[in-house]
Structures are given as structure tokens and as C-alpha cells.
């Protein structure tokens, strides 16, 4: 895919300027922490959205916060763009390098600095993996609640930059609800503390503003996360329906009953069959839709709620409602859902993943709209849905080797996102805007709102050096549409579960 964006391809540096920059970086970093030969840069040319690739001028791998400060000071003085990167698992191209810029990898800042069970917090560096936090506090009966499906690899720094979610958002919140304090380096190299060790902070809520800001406002070098006591018990029910509208109504009925499930997921027929063929989760292959409903809490409470939810599901027309018999079956039920993306990757040469969020009650209209669009474009769509919080992941099946099919797919994807906005939703629930959805931002926001975003950006980074060209489009640049392009089912991290 070729998308020309001036911000990502600034005029080439003169050989002298380039040599001076590398020499200055070499004074900050040890030899092995500074990459600039093409073959060394190659692993950093893209993130999880591999359709977009660019080689940065150099990759810096600092091990200490003072090195991060020095790199940013240097880039600020020389007006060199900087793109921060964690594990590179992001799905929206947020960590795509700038061709004449420095790619700042925070992977070596990977220490858990402090665990305080009494305050239920952990102080960690940005390169710590999401799952590593929960593993480190497991023996204390605690865990870090947000669980993006790439949690085995994705870093907490990237989670903060994207405000990552997971399957337990409805009950346990997003990243923004589960962090307490950040250490931030500004573009001019100043180290700032955002938030306090208490539950709130004086002044503006900069913690919320930083969360989900996609590396546009500063570089996060330390995060204090909140830890949650592990529930006594978690249990999951699998329910089958013979049409998706009935399944959608059942979701509303559960919530109307005053129950907030820990997780509530829906899959449609195409997704069910693909997942079943792939992991043999025990899903009913003939169902038009299935719901997975996880309940957690005190043992007695879960028992009580399981009975209530089963009754609601049956009353709402479920053809079948199965409670997992043991933990192994519970994990198998989840495995089907968590592997839905790679499963779809097996039945189609390529697929394109969307990330809209909609008000749940509009689900029947949106699914009908997607179905109509799917027919009109002659491209099948499988739907995977975080039903509890309205986050929809339609997967468009296509073959990039057929001339024009990718372009049609991108157009269809754009139409689906526009449909999400039309019914009162949003173009991205959890994957971020990055490079991928920058054009759909123009559908979601009007010029004065985009201008306000630019003013916020300028308050932190007046020269526009941090992650230029991402997240917020310029006013006169709202034309092209990006895509998550997966060729022959090969994801950049094929071993990872995806949502």
C-alpha cells in the first residue's frame, strides 16, 4: 500500500546532518544500543499493521531514563522527528517509523521497580510486558486487570499510549482506569511526574489526557499501575442462538437485570465455524450466533448469578446454554474466541480487521448494514463482538492477489466505520487511530474539533516532532483510507491471540 504523508517522509537529511546526528546519538548510547545499518533497522520498519512500512534513520535503544531525556533533547534541538515504540504489537500503525526520524524503542526499560501489596500498586518501566505484571503479583492474590489479547507480548507503555482494553473492560475498565501515575519525558527532555501516589491529583487530569495519546504528547518512562484482587471464582456460560438479533437482545436483557458480567462476547456464524475448525472449542457449528458470558466474584455469588443468567438466556430464546464443567472447558470456550482472528486467517487468503464501537442496541441495524455492504461488495464478513461494551470487530475476507480486491476491501471497511459513526459510535474502540484510521477521523470529527486536538498537541509539542502524521489528520488531509492487511493469514506475530 502506498500512502503518501509528508509528515512521515520529510525531506532527506544531508549526509553531513545525518552523520552529525548519529555521532551525537553515539555520545548518548553505547554502540549496541544504536542501530543505523539498513539490515538492523529492518525489524523496526512496521508494527502489527505490517501493510505500512518505513525505515527510520536510526533506532535508539536506551536503558536509562536519562538517556531518553538526552535523546529527546538532541532531537528537539535538531528538529528530528521521534517515534516511540514498545513491543510493536499495535494494530493501527502507531509505531510506524518516520523515514528521517529516530525510532525510540523502550524495550530495554523493562524492569518492575516496585510492588506494594498494601497500596495494591506496581511501579514499572514502559517495556514491561502486560502479562509479566500479573505474573509478578500472582503470589499476592493480585493481578493487573486490563488484558489486551496480545498481553503475552505487548508492553505496558504501549498499553498506556493506546488506552488498551481487553475482554474485561465493562466490569474492570480500560488502561485509563487502572493506572495512577506516570513519569513522562517531554520533547525538550524534561522529566515530569503526572498524577500522584494518591487516588487523584491537583490541577488538570493530565493522566487521562496522556492515556491513549498515541505517543503524540510525550514519552512515558514509568507507570504506576493499580492491582486488583483476583476474584474467588470465574465461570463462563456458552449460549447458542439461531439469529444474531435474538443474541443481541439477550445481552441487553442480562444488563437490564443488573448483572455486569466480567466478559460478554458474541460471534456470528462465519466466525463460529472458523474458530471451531481451528481450535475445536466445542462451539455449536450450526448456530447463527453464540454468546460467551463470564461471571466472576465470590463463589456463592457466581453460583447465584449463573442460574439467573441461564434463565435469562433461555427466556431470550437461546437454543442452548452450557456452563463450563471445569476450568479446562472454560479456557477452551475462551480459546475459540481468542483465536477468532487467526481462525479467520485460515479460511481466507487475507482479512482486514475493523475496530468500531457502537451503542449495543444498534447492533441489529449495524449487522444488517454490514451484511448489505458485504453483498454489494461481494466480500464475506465475519463478526466478532465485545458485546458487553459495544466494540465490534468485523473481519473482511478477501484475496489481495485478485486485482482491485484490496481497494474494494478498503472501501468496504471505510463504509463500515462510517456506519459505526452514523449510529452514534466511534471508528476505534481499542486499536487506536495511528496511521490506519487517520482518514476516518475526518468522518468522526469536524474541523473545530480537529483544530482543538492540534492545539492540545501544540501545548506539549509545538514543533510537531513526536510521532508526526499520526492519530489526528491535518484539516486538508482527509482523503485516503488505510487497512490492516494480512496476507495469506500471516500476522506479524502469528503466535499471539488477537481480538
Amino acid at each position, binding site marked *: 500500500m502506498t500512502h503518501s504523508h509528508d509528515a512521515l517522509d520529510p525531506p532527506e537529511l544531508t549526509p553531513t546532518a545525518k552523520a552529525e546526528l548519529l555521532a551525537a546519538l553515539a555520545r548518548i548510547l553505547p554502540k549496541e544500543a544504536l542501530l543505523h545499518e539498513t539490515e538492523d533497522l529492518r525489524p523496526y520498519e512496521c508494527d502489527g499493521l505490517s501493510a505500512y512500512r518505513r525505515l527510520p534513520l536510526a533506532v535508539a535503544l536506551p536503558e536509562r531514563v536519562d538517556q531518553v531525556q538526552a535523546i529527546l533533547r538532541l532531537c528537539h534541538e535538531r528538529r528530528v522527528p521521534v517515534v516511540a515504540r514498545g513491543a510493536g504489537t499495535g494494530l493501527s500503525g502507531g509505531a510506524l517509523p518516520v523515514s528521517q526520524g529516530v525510532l525510540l524503542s523502550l524495550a530495554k526499560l523493562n524492569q518492575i521497580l516496585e510492588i506494594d501489596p*498494601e*497500596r*495494591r500498586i506496581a511501579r514499572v518501566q514502559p517495556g514491561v510486558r502486560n502479562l509479566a505484571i500479573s505474573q509478578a503479583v500472582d503470589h499476592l*492474590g493480585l493481578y493487573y486487570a486490563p488484558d489486551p489479547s496480545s498481553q503475552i507480548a505487548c508492553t505496558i507503555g504501549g498499553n498506556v499510549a493506546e*488506552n488498551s482494553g481487553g475482554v474485561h*473492560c465493562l466490569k474492570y*475498565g*480500560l488502561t*485509563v*482506569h487502572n493506572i495512577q501515575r506516570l513519569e513522562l519525558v*517531554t520533547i525538550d527532555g524534561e522529566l*515530569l*511526574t*503526572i498524577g*500522584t*501516589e*494518591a*487516588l*487523584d491529583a*491537583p*490541577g*488538570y*487530569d493530565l493522566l*487521562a*489526557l496522556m*492515556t*491513549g495519546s498515541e505517543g503524540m504528547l510525550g514519552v512515558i518512562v514509568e507507570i504506576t499501575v493499580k492491582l486488583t*484482587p483476583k476474584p474467588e471464582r470465574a465461570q463462563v456460560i456458552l449460549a447458542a442462538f439461531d439469529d444474531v438479533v435474538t443474541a443481541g437482545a439477550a445481552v*441487553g*436483557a442480562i444488563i437490564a437485570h*443488573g448483572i*455486569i458480567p466480567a466478559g460478554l462476547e458474541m460471534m456470528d456464524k462465519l466466525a463460529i465455524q472458523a474458530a471451531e475448525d481451528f481450535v475445536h472449542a466445542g462451539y455449536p457449528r450450526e448456530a447463527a450466533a453464540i454468546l460467551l458470558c463470564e461471571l466472576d466474584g*465470590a463463589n*456463592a*455469588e457466581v453460583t*447465584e448469578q449463573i442460574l439467573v443468567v441461564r434463565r435469562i438466556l433461555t427466556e431470550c430464546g437461546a437454543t442452548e446454554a452450557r456452563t463450563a464443567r471445569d476450568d479446562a472447558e472454560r479456557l477452551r470456550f475462551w480459546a475459540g474466541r481468542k483465536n477468532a482472528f487467526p481462525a479467520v486467517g485460515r479460511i481466507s487468503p487475507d482479512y482486514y480487521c475493523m475496530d468500531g*464501537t457502537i*451503542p*449495543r*442496541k444498534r447492533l441489529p441495524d449495524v449487522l444488517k448494514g454490514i451484511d448489505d455492504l458485504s453483498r454489494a461488495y461481494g466480500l464475506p464478513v465475519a463478526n466478532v463482538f*465485545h458485546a458487553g*461494551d*459495544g*466494540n465490534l470487530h468485523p473481519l473482511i475476507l478477501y484475496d489481495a492477489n485478485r486485482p482491485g480486491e484490496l481497494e474494494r476491501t478498503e472501501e468496504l471497511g471505510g463504509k463500515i466505520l462510517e456506519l459505526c459513526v452514523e449510529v*452514534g*459510535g*466511534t*471508528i*476505534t*474502540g*481499542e*486499536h487506536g*487511530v495511528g496511521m490506519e484510521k487517520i482518514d476516518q477521523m475526518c468522518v*468522526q470529527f469536524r474541523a473545530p*474539533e480537529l483544530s*482543538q*486536538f492540534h*492545539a492540545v498537541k*501544540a*501545548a506539549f509539542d509545538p514543533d510537531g516532532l513526536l510521532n508526526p502524521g499520526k492519530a489526528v489528520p491535518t484539516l486538508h488531509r482527509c482523503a485516503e483510507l488505510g487497512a490492516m492487511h494480512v496476507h495469506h493469514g500471516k500476522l506479524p506475530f502469528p503466535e499471539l491471540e488477537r481480538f
Partner: protein
Amino acid sequence: MTGRDCSEALQAQVREAIADRQPLCIRGGGTKDFLGRTPQGLPLALDQHAGIVNYEPTELVVTVRAGTRLGELEQALSERGQMLAFEPPSFGPAATIGGTIACNLSGPARPYAGAARDAVLGVKLLNGKGEILRFGGEVMKNVAGYDVSRLMVGAMGTLGVLLEVSIKVLPRPEHEITLTQPGLPAAAALERLHALARQPIPITAAAYCDDELRLRLGGTESGLAAARAVIAGEPMDAGEAAAFWLGLKNHQLPFFADQRPLWRLSVPVNLAPIPLAGEWLYDWGGAQRWIHSDAAPERLFEIAGQAGGHGTAFRNAADPDQVFQPLAPGIARLHRRLKQAFDPHGLLNPGRMYADL
């Protein structure tokens, strides 16, 4: 529900103020005039801009105009078995949701159910350029653009006039019970709270005053029975318990009658009792501590700051200029730039929060 959409009239007033460079004092019910630095500017009345715009109980979201009275909103939610999870304080019947959100006011449930800022999903606002803008929305997950909605929460109107707010709501717990443990010294009460907080127990509020620890639990009947089996304490009469939590939330307990400056210290939850003489009231499981004190503001700011938190002269401030914890220089600079980004002429609630915002 009374009220109507006054967005256009409010926009006209802000535009007029911009033309005249006339500072504005944003005003809902006027129940929080005591809070923050001294209000100044021409009043911009929001109380007529009221009414629930959209309420979808099964979507767990309500969108409401800023001038809507908090009591009316809570009544509407209650009729559908739902509530504002952050249990906002109300300092008078005229209190509005706009003022509540602008001040990020959250009640006893805050450590367990999140603050006002955690519940906000979207806003419609008027910035200092007279533009009506929408950020966020009515959905739980939304990462398109910077989180301007939450930036507005607690900004005390200095970045924009809130017109509408979309808020996540939650079902009311089926059952509630309050357990008390009298005759407990502060340090012992705190220790007990920390031990409990590490377990998956459905605590919804925890306060300590008059040597008495009170724990509120919420959930299903069986869930509460299970929790009671592992928690010591005598159950309180339901009516008395409700009155206590309401009095705590709205500052109507006898403790709050004292007319000396009332300080709020937001501190790490496990901070040992602070050696400052006076009667202390602990809320938020120990993370929010109240004291009436004539001590110098600098002293309170120092105590709170050194503990890793911050202090606020919440009521009857001795020095009207020293209300909020001073900001670190780098953070203060970002505040000034953000103010400039939203309100370039400095007309919205100038000086209400800090002198230069």
C-alpha cells in the same frame, strides 16, 4: 424533567464576552461557590440548560445537559434500578451535574467504583473561542482522538463550558450492609482496611471517625453472606447506615459543622496517621482524609506533598489564594499552555483554580 437546550444562547453569550474581553463565571446551582479560589467575572447561568437528552438503561449510559439538577438525574436513574457509581456529593438541592463533573466530586464509593472522571464517556462543550465541540461519545470504548472529555473533569470550567455530559451508569447493588467496629485506634483501623483490600471482598465504602470503622458491602444476598463470614463487625441498622453514608458524602455529619478551615488530604491509602493535632475523618479506605485546621496552608501542602499526595483547603480557606496544592513548575507550564489551547483569551472561570489559569 424540566429544562431545555440553551446551547445556542450560551454560545452567543460566550461570543459576546469574547468580543468584549469580559471574563465569565460559569454557574450552575451555585452550591459550590465556596470551593476553589474566589469566583469572578460576569455570571454565565447554566441552570436553565437542563434535561436528560438520552438515557438507555441497557446501554448503561445517560447523556444529560449540564444544568440538570443532580437530584433529578439520580431520581431518574433510581427509577430504573441504576445509579451514578461515583456517588457524587451534593452540597445543596440546586447542585447540578455540570458542576459535579467540573469539580470531579466523588463520594465514599470512589476507591471501589471509580471517580467522576472514570465514569465520563463524552462531553459537548463550549471552548473559549465560542465553538461548540463534541468529544468522546456514548460508548464505553473510544480511543479516537485525545481524551478531552476526561480532561474537562475537575478543570473547574477553566478549559470550557460543559454543555452535555455522557456518563456510564451502573446497576444499584441488590443488597447493602454496613458493618461497624467501634473502639478502634486509627492505626489499627488502617491496618485492617489494608488487609481487607487485598481480598476479593465487595466493599463499596470504608470510613473511619470517632474511633469507629465502618465498612459498607454491596452485592447479592449470598455474596454478602459469604463476605460477612470473613469480616468482623456488627451490622448497623439499615436506616442509620444510610444516614451515615449520606451525611459523610454531603458533609452533614457533626464532624463537618466546625467553622475552621476544612482541609482535604488526598494521600496514599496506606499512609500512617498524620501527626497533625486535631480530629481526623478518614474516607476512601484511608485515601481521603479530612481535618479542620488553622495550621498554615504551606504546612498542609507540605504534609500532603511529602506523603505523595496533595491537599485542598476545601471550605473556609484561611487564605483564598492558597486553596489547591501548588503545581510543580513543569506541570504548571503545561497547565498554562492547555489553558491557552482551550481558552486563548482567558475568559472562562479565570483564577478559579489557580491564579494564572
